[in-house]
């Protein structure tokens, strides 16, 4: 009976308007959350080393500098200047081996292939790969090595192609054991070694930082120098390349700072960080807009309810006067709004799931994607609860305010 009375107070257009705007807002909110959850592993994978927006910085090598090699090193003043910049979060140095390195492999028949090498190291937190075998201690005679991915590509697509040699995979390379001899300071030591990983970002032959510190002390040129001798600074402590971490890689001051000082900065890496940053920014933007749409749709229904109650004030007052309570008077509207909201959330979850199906198919053809749609349903459930509480409380508050105005 009371429903019959109250049904006439509502306009189907108001309800349809609420249902539609809420649906649009919810679909976008849920989809953005789900896209972010689905794409995040890819972003992390691609930019692990630069998750803190770190880039490699070196000095430009000019004709003058080829003659005066000292000029490729960073001096203390330059390092201090760099570290004091607002956009710089931290600076890490590449450590170079200050001893000679020779790698060899014995071939059946008594022969031996050997080559001279160099080593560098960076703090582990800057590595984009972290193989299980990336461990070293002074008692161990095994030395793990990481080489740039490009070395293998250079061989496979350049050398092997032109010399009609077989191509080799990363897995094959990791199987090959060889020996490393380090010599310096009148001593030498042999290690067994293996390439344990390929870095997509750091363009050098890397060994664990602990190893290089230890080996530079024992076999390095610096170890021979008296401790009180200030000059020359040992080359191991004069970095020629730096890893610089930024708070925000898209900061406009970064390119100009490095350009003005003739420093070479790995632009592509910076661009990559920028892209990730912009992607996140775009997602955040869309998310904020979607939240605004949802908030507006809730505002629409609350305003509609206000309007309905004010237009039918005497109906509400009469019901209250003959003994109906506020919850009883509000119940019809609460049910209606709750049903529309719940149906909208379910519909939005289904639509978002269908849309996810479309982009996941495309994504999985490009990348190995994992992840499920569970987040979408959790988000939908949370949103549904929040909206139901908000709408129900608002409707009851409006009715109470109207009937208790005398």
């Amino acid at each position, binding site marked *: 009976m009371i429903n*019959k009375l109250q049904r*006439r107070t509502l306009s189907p257009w108001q309800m349809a308007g609420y249902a539609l705007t809420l649906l649009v807002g919810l679909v976008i909110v849920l989809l953005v959350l789900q896209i972010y959850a689905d794409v995040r592993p890819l972003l992390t994978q691609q930019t692990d080393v630069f998750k803190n927006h770190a880039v490699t910085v070196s000095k430009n090598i000019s004709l003058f500098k080829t003659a005066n090699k000292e000029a490729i090193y960073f001096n203390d003043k330059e390092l201090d200047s760099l570290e004091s910049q607002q956009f710089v979060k931290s600076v890490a140095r590449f450590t170079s081996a200050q001893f000679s390195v020779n790698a060899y492999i014995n071939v059946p028949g008594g022969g031996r292939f050997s080559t001279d090498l160099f080593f560098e190291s960076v703090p582990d937190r800057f590595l984009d790969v972290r193989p299980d075998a990336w461990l070293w201690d002074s008692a161990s005679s095994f030395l793990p090595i990481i080489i740039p991915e490009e070395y293998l590509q250079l061989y496979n697509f350049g050398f092997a192609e032109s010399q009609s040699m077989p191509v080799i995979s990363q897995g094959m390379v990791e199987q090959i054991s060889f020996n490393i001899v380090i010599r310096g300071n009148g001593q030498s030591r042999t290690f067994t070694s293996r390439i344990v990983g390929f870095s997509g970002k750091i363009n050098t032959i890397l060994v664990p930082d602990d190893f290089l510190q230890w080996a530079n002390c024992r076999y390095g040129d610096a170890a021979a120098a008296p401790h009180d001798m200030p000059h020359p600074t040992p080359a191991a402590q004069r970095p020629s390349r730096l890893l610089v971490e930024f708070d925000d890689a898209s900061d406009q001051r970064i390119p100009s700072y490095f350009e003005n000082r003739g420093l070479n900065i790995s632009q592509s890496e910076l661009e990559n960080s920028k892209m990730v940053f912009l992607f996140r920014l775009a997602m955040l933007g869309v998310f904020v807009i979607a939240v605004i749409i949802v908030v507006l749709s809730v505002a629409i229904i609350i305003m509609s309810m206000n309007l309905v109650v004010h237009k039918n004030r005497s109906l509400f007052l009469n019901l209250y006067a*003959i003994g109906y309570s506020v919850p009883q008077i509000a119940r019809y509207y609460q049910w209606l709004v709750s049903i529309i909201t719940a149906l909208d959330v379910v519909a939005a979850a289904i639509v978002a799931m269908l849309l996810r199906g479309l982009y996941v198919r495309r994504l999985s053809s490009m990348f190995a994607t994992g992840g499920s749609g569970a987040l979408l349903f959790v988000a939908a459930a949370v949103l549904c609860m929040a909206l139901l509480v908000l709408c129900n409380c608002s409707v009851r508050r409006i009715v109470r305010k109207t009937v208790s105005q005398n």
Partner: protein
Amino acid sequence: MSESEVTGSDIYLIPEFRFEKGKRYMVCARSGHGKTSLLNFIYGVSHRFDGSIEYRGFDSVGTLASSAARPMPEHQLLLLRRRALSLMFQDLCLFDELTAFENVQLKNRLTGFKTDAEIRAMLDTLLPSAKKDQPVRTLSLGQRQRVAAVRAMCQPFAFLLLDEPFSHLDHQSAAQVAELIARETEKQEAALIVTALDPTSLFHFDATINL
């Protein structure tokens, strides 16, 4: 209303007035002298008065109080309106979209006090039978007043408040309504407070109060 308007009142500006259960009161005054206001104060619709109103000795309610400074909480007010007080509004407060029967039913559903058959029987004594299933907006003012009277009786009450209940009825119709009301108040051993412009002889009143 101004102080001069209430001079000589039997209720306003006196320390205490007590309405007792089982008695019948006639409240007489000219238009605008506060008849409807008095019933609204008692029924808890309005709190714009000085002093306080106490409701004592209702089995299901206990002693409650209401004043401008401390209006009665909603749950107590609703309990009072469903169990102890029934008001027939001067402006009737019927729902135009509902039929006469539905209007009464809407109120009766709160307490389930009367059966549908009892409601129909009451309406049949006061209205042409075809009218009770027509929307109230199609009824005459007098017919609506009778629907409002029936509605006021469809709940348990200790006090039945009637605000100018016969203003749009001829003498014969008024007598029919009065008889039904008298029967119901006797059955419920309730008090009756009737407001009117002039004294009426339709009930045997225990007291007449001039505002």
